[in-house]
């Protein structure tokens, strides 16, 4: 089971955080601090797996962003890398050539996609098409909603 997923930049700024276990604010901040220091301190060509307390940390760097996944010790680390990669592919498909700015300005969409893919620490849906279709549907609902408001304003 996955415990948390963090995204942070090379400078240590947190972009996304998703927690799959209940933790207090203090604990979350501590974990974020520990993860950023540990992962950013790693040499470029070292192994992608770390040990932290009783969890395994799987991290991967994509351009300027670090994806950091904390899993329990029975999990398959190589599969964890695949999970990170699948999420990146989903973001890429949706935003079209995704970059850090996309995630900064549309972080709520990033969270929606993540929630479609992972739920309570496990993979929910493995099909890329299904996930994309769900997000597109919710986008269309949002637009309709906005349009309705506009019409109401015009016609009192």
């Amino acid at each position, binding site marked *: 089971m996955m415990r948390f997923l963090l995204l942070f930049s090379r400078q240590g700024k947190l972009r996304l955080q998703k927690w799959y276990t209940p933790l207090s604010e203090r604990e979350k901040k501590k974990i974020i601090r520990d993860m950023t220091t540990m992962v950013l301190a790693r*040499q470029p*060509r*070292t*192994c*992608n*797996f*770390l*040990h932290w307390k009783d969890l395994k940390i799987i991290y991967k760097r994509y351009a300027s962003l670090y994806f950091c996944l904390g899993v329990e010790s029975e999990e*398959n*680390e*190589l*599969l964890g*890398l*695949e*999970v990170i*990669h*699948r999420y990146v592919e989903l973001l890429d498909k949706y935003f079209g050539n995704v970059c850090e700015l996309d995630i900064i300005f549309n972080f709520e969409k990033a969270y929606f996609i993540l929630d479609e893919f992972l739920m*309570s620490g*496990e*993979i*929910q*849906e*493995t*099909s*890329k*098409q*299904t996930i994309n279709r769900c997000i597109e549907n919710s986008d269309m609902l949002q637009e309709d909603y906005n349009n309705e408001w506009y019409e109401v304003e015009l016609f009192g």
Partner: protein
Amino acid sequence: MGSSEMCRDLAGEVEKLLKTSNSYLRKKVGVLHTSVVLLTEMCERSPDMLAHFRKLVPQLVRILKNLIMSGYSPEHDVSGISDPFLQVRILRLLRILGKSDDDSSEAMNDILAQVATNTETSKNVGNAILYETVLTIMDIKSESGLRVSRFLLNNDKNIRYVALTSLLKTVQTDHNAVQRHRSTIVDCLKDLDVSIKRRAMELSFALVNGNNIRGMMKELLYFLDSCDPEFKADCASGVFLAAEKYAPSKRWHIDTIMRVLTTAGSYVRDDSVPNLIQLITNSVEMHAYTVQRLYKALLDDISQQPLVQVASWCIGEYGDLLVSGQCEEEEPIQVTEDEVLDVLEGLLVSNLSTPVTRGYALTAIMKLSTRFSSVNRIKKVVSIYGSSIDVELQQRAVEYNALFKKYDHMRPALLERMPIMEKTSTNGPTEIVQTNGETEPSVVETKHLPPVTQSTNQVDQTALKNNGLKIDFTFERANPNPNVAVITIHASNLTEADMTDFVFQAAVPKTFQLQLLSPSSNVVPALNQGTVTQVIRVLNSQKQQLRMRIKLTYTLKGSPVQDLAEVNNFPPQSWQ
């Protein structure tokens, strides 16, 4: 993944889903995945679920086969492998189901072999599946093909890490297979990556055995030299443990310990110092060699505290061997008493020494007063520290001073060589070492304190009752070692005058071993005002009837008295 009741309710539903999913595989794969995850959790938590779902194994095997054989499905696949997430989950579930069940293992064997051979390993995905397969193969009861060797030789860091982790798991069950890869593992020690180094170190310690100890130890000591500080403590303790278990000879053992102390001395754990001291005491024939090497090490470097502590303790104990220049194993060095005292005094004044080390050094100097002839110099040193700021040092110095002045007759007896310590508990050696110079003088100090009041212990036996002197024995069993009987004697005096210079001696037949601890006092006060107690420890390894001859000498009204007795009627529970 939901409460246990919910799971039980859903179990039936999930079974149905799995059966239908067979036909609508592609459409319902999301559901299939989650149901497999649910099953895995349920089986992990509850063993009856496990039995219940065992019958699903053939179905799972079929699903897996379909996944591998089925053609290209763009939405689920990752670089040519269809739905690796589902594959891995199914493999994990198969692992749990097949763990201790032969039939399921049989059913799975083929598919596992097929997955293992057909999966392409050029990409990470393939490796992920292969890793899961290997773990499954290892856990279920079948001959493991040990594909791990392929992993270990791979250049990719991630793969190597994963291989080392899985080897660590197998090493408990299949030791020999892992030995084959020993050389590769030892190479991994030299890898730059911290995680890999740590795994390789743990694995190397697990692999050490009587045959490869010398070679492995060389590699591990080299590793200790060059590794990061965070590893040094673990590596040092590991080296000590391995050396203790598999040392081919005492000399090799001591050499290895010396090497660890000199290279990683400051990272060694605190409890290793007493353990080492005990080890050195027990290897009687190596005393001269050990003290010589430690002395030479001390001349080079006094910054590593554990090394300095062990060295100063040994010099205190065996200083006479050092000065006499007798050493068969190595070239004996010529050392004078003054040089040794210089070194120890240097430790006392150096800024690098911690208070504990200073305590060790002072006690060592004191012990040398009975082994060396330059007593005056030692007296001077000890009296200087009587006014030291450090309370611990001051107390020690004052007590040693008292030992020189008032109790000089007791000094040789107190400071003689330590006996061989049996390793009873972790506290044993520490107590003796740390308090060696201390409890002795404090016992001396209590000579003039009021004696112990009449205790209300159960009197198990009266050994002697003669001329107004009564000796009682009470028995108990020493905790860590049931063969040791602890007998406490209580001496009481019924005459009107005190019995002074009271000495109790005991002798036992050859099959026993006797240890007499110090008495509470030398004066048995008159008219039953108090008792003198002394503890005797008897090792009765052959469980024979305990017999003892006791001899008492004391001075009553100015004239010496001697009394002998033989005690044969010990109660059975004291020695059985």
